[in-house]
């Protein structure tokens, strides 16, 4: 299937400045050569811990941040080459849902206005009346009573606010939604409702999701494919089945083993990772994971392993898995 979104060798480096007047003393390589593909209607989950660069990757794709280098091709169009006007038109097709249902809605706007705003901006619908009808339908679709349109965000619970955020993202009938930790701020009992809603909307409208998350149990529910990030690089990519049943990268394995299981009768086998993740300002040489890796070999501190396709569709950047072409890069 041809890709809806194709990200190539994306980099985003942030300068470190020590003082107001001093120059740049270093770079935080938040995203350091990330390539991804998303097919129409597909959910690609981008997972990783804090500092992995997953949120920065999402923001670069949306051009909420300007990448340092790389390409972001949506439906054949290179988004990074677009002038602001053309980019605004493109935003109809690429929408976003943020993590924080409290901070991402304007507290002084009524929710009806919040959801109608994208329709107003892009002049969709023949009249205000028609747009109001669309807002009512959107609110109903995300499980909110349309009569709530005149209320303000603070009158809603976290889960309801996230539904408002979903309705706003949905208003322009996008083909891709970048959802950045959309359920991690929600209570468990409400989280499930929003996950179900996102899956239903995908089935109904054929939307593709870039689903950015740290919770692998949530990801297993919603993702078709999973990309695991560590310190600005992709460590492993594969189908949901492959990543969860046959994880290859030691980091992916450690992540899966670290998830606490709600079953007290199960004795966990767990290789606890030692130490904290290094700073992305000073990633370790060679494989970035080697300082915490339980299976480190001689090449790891010296050579950065390339991302290689080990079995069809399953890619891993690890010296333990030489690609089909023989020895891994060096």
């Amino acid at each position, binding site marked *: 299937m041809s890709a809806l979104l194709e990200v190539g060798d994306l980099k985003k480096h942030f300068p470190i400045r020590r003082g107001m007047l001093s120059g740049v003393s270093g770079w935080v390589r938040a995203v350091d050569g990330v390539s991804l593909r998303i097919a129409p209607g597909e959910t690609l989950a981008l997972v990783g811990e804090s500092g992995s660069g997953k949120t920065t990757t999402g923001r670069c794709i949306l051009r909420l941040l300007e990448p340092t280098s790389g390409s972001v091709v949506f439906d054949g169009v290179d988004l990074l080459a677009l002038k602001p006007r053309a980019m605004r038109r493109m935003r109809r097709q690429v929408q976003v849902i943020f993590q924080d249902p409290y901070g991402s809605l304007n507290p002084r706007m009524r929710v009806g206005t919040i959801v109608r705003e994208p329709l107003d901006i892009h002049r969709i619908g023949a009249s205000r009346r028609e747009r109001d009808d669309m807002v009512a339908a959107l609110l109903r679709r995300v499980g909110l009573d349309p009569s709530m349109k005149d209320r303000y965000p603070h009158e809603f619970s976290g889960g309801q606010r996230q539904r408002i955020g979903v309705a706003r993202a949905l208003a322009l009938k996008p083909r891709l939604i970048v959802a950045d930790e959309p359920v991690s701020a929600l209570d468990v009992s409400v989280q499930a409702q929003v996950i179900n809603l996102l899956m239903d909307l995908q089935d109904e409208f054929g939307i593709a999701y870039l689903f950015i998350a740290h919770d692998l149990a949530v990801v297993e529910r919603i993702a078709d494919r999973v990309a695991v990030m560590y310190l600005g690089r992709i460590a492993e990519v594969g189908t949901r089945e492959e990543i969860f049943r046959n994880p290859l990268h030691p980091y992916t394995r450690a*992540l899966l083993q*670290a998830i606490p299981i709600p079953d007290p009768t199960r004795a966990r086998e767990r290789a606890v*990772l030692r130490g904290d993740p290094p700073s992305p300002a000073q990633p370790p040489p060679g494989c970035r994971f080697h300082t915490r890796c339980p299976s480190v070999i001689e090449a790891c501190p010296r050579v950065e392993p390339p991302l290689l396709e080990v079995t069809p569709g399953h890619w891993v950047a690890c010296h333990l898995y030489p690609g089909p072409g023989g020895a891994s890069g060096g």
Partner: protein
Amino acid sequence: MPRILEVTDLSAHFPSEAGVVRAVDRVSFHVDEGETLGLVGESGCGKSITALSIVRLVPPPGRIVSGRIVYKGTDLMTLPERRMRRYRGREIALIFQEPSTALNPVFTVGYQIAEGLIVHGIMKKKEALREAVRLMELVRIADAGRRAREYPHQMSGGMRQRVLIAMALACRPSLLVADEPTTALDVTLQAEILDMLRVLKRDLRLSLLLISHNLGVIAETADRVAVMYAGRIVEEAGARPLFASPKHPYTAGLLRSMPRLGGAETGSGGGRRRLPAIEGNVPDLARLPSGCAFHPRCPDVMAECRVHTPGLLPLGDGAVACFKHHDPGGRPR
């Protein structure tokens, strides 16, 4: 096993414009010596205020309006504040969620760990600072001697959480109250901290009250579990029976709605599936529904649930507050 802590009919209220918020509403539970009690609930259910109540640190304008907090035979509620201070930190230590705000930015972490020992008059400063380094080693901080002289901002989140645990352990408390100790941490760090808490608890013979919204964390750590909803304990049982056969519809719903790694590890298909969600939203404590606070979301709601509030009554080896199991007169059904 002897009880180390017994809380009976504890209520903590907060005045608000919308009326009295019953953040903790006639809560009773106990912790046995050497055991871990897990207190689980969602945001705003009153679990953190319960933790603070135990050491009488409910933030004003909230206050404890009733209840008994018996620690090793002494009712802490009857103590003058001066004597209460001898319990706080020394007998009962607290660990909070946010490792970045619980530390003072202008003192070295070594000093902050030693401070409790100095304040409680257990050690002189020099000795206490040496003890701080030993405590940092205990919580697996490498190169502790050097790191003791660092300031909190020089440390990562995981390191700071370890420092907070070292601080809590400094005066060798008997009871550790840990409120979401791993929530701000990444999952790999969470695993390491939980692992460490288990070892420390065993080696130092601590009793632990672990508060979390994460059922996985509770399952891996707790011997017994109390489930809170809207300021009340709705179910209490041993960890195994609670997870195997929850009695309260809220506990059952919570367990069902939680996504868990399934397909990958059990081979049961797993994967893309709708989750059985609990309908509705967590209620606002200032505007609680009548009767049982869970009734608007409950799949098993009955007429009496809308009118009467079920009390927490014994059932098997645990207790449950639900009219499915007892009638409004308190008789088993």
